[in-house]
């Protein structure tokens, strides 16, 4: 007999799998681990969330983290996009800058924390700098890749139509043609930036912040609250990605809809 499964886009599957996970988590915490320090249960976390909302620091934590996030990501775009364009469009720039980039790129972003503190002190800028180091390379490399993959026919068609200077070709042909790559790079960068956030707020740059609070409550041994902040970080990361994808597809990349990639 044929079983009628709900459509693949139905929210039924997601609701089912998450419900099962929550029940298993609750049983595991209450009946198996039986230690709320090692594994707080689902209900502990819900209760801790309620307590944190009443305490009222969540909006401030969110705002401070957003400041760090946007300082880092903003710098990445300001530096990464022009640098990617430079090495993608001018072969000489590529040969000169590529060795330097390849030496700096493998250094883990968190290894920059001591210098971030020395250069910028315990400020929001120091946290932003660590996030910048993490997210600038995805922006740069994807911009470069996008520029390298521009079909030659677009450049030639542009030149035949009077678009002849490097500046005009970059602006009217190369950037729009490379935009899907730029968007992909920005998306990867925003993911990396979000991941760097917890570490960037670890060394005491601010009294607030979603990452800062994870360390704060860990030191207070309140693991239920640590879990609340972990889940908040996850959800906000998801929402940022979703908003970004939606905005790009509806505006700058709407010409790509229905195209086979």
């Amino acid at each position: 007999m044929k079983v009628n499964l709900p459509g693949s886009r139905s929210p039924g599957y997601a609701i089912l799998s998450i419900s099962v996970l929550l029940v298993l988590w609750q049983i595991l915490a209450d009946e198996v681990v039986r230690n709320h320090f090692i594994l707080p249960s689902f209900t502990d976390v819900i209760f801790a969330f309620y307590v944190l909302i009443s305490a009222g620091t969540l909006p401030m934590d969110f705002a401070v983290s957003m400041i760090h996030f946007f300082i880092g990501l903003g710098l990445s775009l300001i530096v990464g996009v022009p640098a990617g364009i430079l090495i993608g469009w001018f072969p000489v720039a590529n040969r000169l800058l590529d060795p330097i980039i390849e030496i700096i790129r493998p250094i883990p972003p968190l290894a920059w924390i001591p210098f971030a503190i020395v250069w910028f002190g315990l400020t929001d800028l120091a946290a932003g700098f660590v996030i910048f180091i993490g997210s600038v390379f995805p922006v740069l490399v994807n911009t470069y890749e996008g520029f390298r993959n521009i079909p030659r026919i677009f450049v030639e068609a542009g030149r035949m139509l009077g678009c002849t200077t490097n500046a005009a070709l970059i602006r009217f042909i190369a950037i729009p043609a490379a935009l899907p790559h730029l968007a992909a790079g920005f998306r990867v960068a925003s993911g990396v930036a979000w991941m760097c956030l917890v570490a960037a707020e670890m060394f005491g740059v601010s009294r607030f912040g979603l990452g800062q609070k994870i360390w704060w409550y860990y030191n207070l041994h309140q693991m239920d609250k640590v879990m609340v902040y972990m889940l908040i970080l996850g959800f906000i990361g998801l929402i940022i990605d979703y908003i970004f994808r939606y905005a790009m597809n509806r505006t700058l990349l709407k010409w790509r809809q229905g195209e086979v990639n």
Partner: protein
Amino acid sequence: MGSVEISHISREFIRDDGDRVIALSDITLSIADDEFVSFVGPSGCGKTTLLRIIAGLDHANAGEVRVDGSLITGPGQKVGMVFQEYSLFPWRSVLSNVAFGLQMRGISKEERYAVARKYISLVGLSQFEHSYPHELSGGMKQRVAIARALATDPDILLMDEPFGALDAQTRNHMQCELLDIWETKKKTILFVTHSCDEAVFLSDRIVVLSPRPGIVRDIINIPISRPRDRTDKEFIDLRRHLLEMIEEEERKEERIKCKSGNL
């Protein structure tokens, strides 16, 4: 105005293995204003290279091209080009694609859109001006490409196998449309094709190129008055003559390849 003087053009490429390939050797050709000239020949005969040199997209190793007496050193205002396929900017709508050349000349948005609309209606796509290229069929895309090349009003239109990817029916239809445009707009058209039928149907003159090295093997005048009938005896005879010439060139190629063990 739009006369083209090609004198002693040579072009060679260095292959990756160091071999020199002579794509064009001492081509000299004179094309009159408002003339429709096709270039045919077996693949590798350098017809696209020649067109690219006239366009200013490629440089000859020797010789020069003059358009109305002035030397071609790079892409210029007098010459427009329609490419094989996929040359429309996919991020721009039909209207914005056609207006692109005028935008590059610094013409205001209102004015360039008005001109672009005129050319879009000339190719019969007024209903699609807000569509994006991926929403159009192959024939429609090439119509937009023609409108885009015409919008800046060049004297000379270069066309590099523009209908090569279209099905036979659309292709025949596009050929008639192109002749209509050519007659109303008075352009010099240089048309690269590998179809003898297309060349005989469209051209005033057909330049037959022979490969390795690329030289002009023959120039055929087509005296048939337009509109031409494909089933006409004169048409069929000319087509057969052309086809035989190209097949002979191709056989020569095969023999050279066999001798040098390239097969």
